[in-house]
């Protein structure tokens, strides 16, 4: 665990030692604000809640999270530092976890900095703060899902642009799988059970359940198992590079 923490510390330091962190956080905050007020119609709804804020998170993450995850492994391979890292006395699992946790912490910091939104709704009205806490938790879990997929894809290539684009494509499938547009396509010829399965793989439907304020263990298990699954593939992909 100590080793994982050492790697995490170095990675988090790496984010803040370069402009990456600051550029990302500023863009994230501006975009989440724009989506909430302009596209989500925060004022027009005349309701003191953060639905219009959280509803856009899957779409915001779809494009912003791959920008964080693309560098996780591709950059190490491009710079050759992966040789330095993997010849230190650490296991692949520790390296994968350390890097993932660092990226997740970084996302959590970005998400935390949206707290003025929370203050705003509390100032304007009397929102259900329990729902907001559950939504933040759901948003963080969903970000973890996007990151784990991105980390896995980043380990498959030296090229960060490829990692970015492929991650968006894969995450897009996970995002839209519960949307009517996809489900309608399947509904005419597939049994309901399969339809439910497809829908259950969706980031959006699992996240929306949590934003309703009900912390359902199934949604949490969904995100956690997705993270564990993607990170396991990540470990396999790095081991296979070794020629094992």
């Amino acid at each position, binding site marked *: 665990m100590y080793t994982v923490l050492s*790697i995490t*510390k170095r990675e988090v*330091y790496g984010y803040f*030692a*370069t402009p990456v962190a600051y550029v990302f956080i500023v863009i994230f905050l501006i975009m989440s604000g724009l989506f909430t007020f302009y596209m989500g119609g925060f004022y027009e709804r005349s309701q003191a809640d953060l639905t219009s804020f959280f509803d856009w998170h899957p779409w915001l993450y779809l494009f912003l999270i791959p920008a964080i995850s693309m560098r996780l492994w591709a950059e190490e391979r491009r710079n050759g*530092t992966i040789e330095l890292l993997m*010849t230190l*006395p650490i296991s692949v699992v520790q390296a994968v976890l350390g890097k993932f946790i660092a990226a997740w912490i970084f996302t959590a910091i970005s998400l935390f900095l949206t707290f003025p939104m929370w203050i705003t709704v509390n100032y304007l009205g009397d929102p259900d703060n329990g729902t907001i806490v559950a939504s933040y938790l759901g948003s963080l879990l969903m970000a973890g899902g996007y990151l784990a997929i991105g980390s896995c894809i980043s380990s498959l290539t030296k090229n960060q642009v490829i990692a970015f684009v492929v991650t968006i494509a894969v995450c897009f499938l996970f995002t839209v799988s519960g949307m009517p547009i996809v489900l309608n396509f399947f509904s005419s010829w597939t049994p309901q059970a399969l339809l439910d399965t497809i829908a259950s793989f969706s980031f959006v439907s699992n996240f929306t359940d949590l934003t309703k304020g009900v912390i359902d263990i199934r949604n949490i298990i969904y995100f956690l198992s997705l993270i564990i699954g993607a990170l396991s593939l990540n470990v396999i992909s790095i081991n296979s590079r070794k020629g094992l």
Partner: protein
Amino acid sequence: MSVLIEVDKLTKSFGPFVAVDNISFSLKRGEVLGFLGPNGAGKTTTMRMITGFLAPTAGSIKVCGNDVSQYPIAIKEKIGYVPEGAPLYGEMTVLKFLHFIADIRKIPKNRIDKAINGAIKKLGLDLVLYQQVETLSKGYKRRVGLSQAIIHDPDVLILDEPTDGLDPNQKHEVRKLITEMSSTKAIIISTHILEEVDAVCSRAMIIANGRMIVDKSPKELLVGSPKGATLDDVFRSLTIENVKENK
């Protein structure tokens, strides 16, 4: 003298290409092995297998008595390694980087300052401690790469072209450092520079096309060559012949 590295019938293929072909040797504490060969001979691949970065296709490697494939983490603790080109985390300052390495190598808290200061002093990094690694000159980067390899005082040092990019004075310093450390460690150095072999190595191994051609002391290499021949001449005649044979 204890044997620290044992390489037995080591082979590595990448698809149909055989990069390292049935190489065996052992190295004792106190020995400095110069790894010579033309570009693409398999030097780096061999070093990557000894350090556990690549897995061999066949054969075995033991470092300090432990098999590399069975105890990868235990052997990595015993090795200090400077990979080819000495890759480093450019965004870190030299001091932060050394702290990271000391941390991950689990150097005890009470010895951490001593270990880091020792490495800084040996490689003359005092003036650049708070500079980001990516802003350093090539020579300094190489020295930072070397400092991370010796910080934990390893039994085995593996250096892939450690003096590449250094000026003559720095080369001299690094060679002096290697000679100073050589009595307590087993060291493998890959290099193109043959005078380096003469200066620091007790053994020279020439490989070409993945195969070992010669494993002798630098002086023995010259035996049988025409009078006045240098190591350069011996190297050229041995490797060119081998390349022709394979064509």
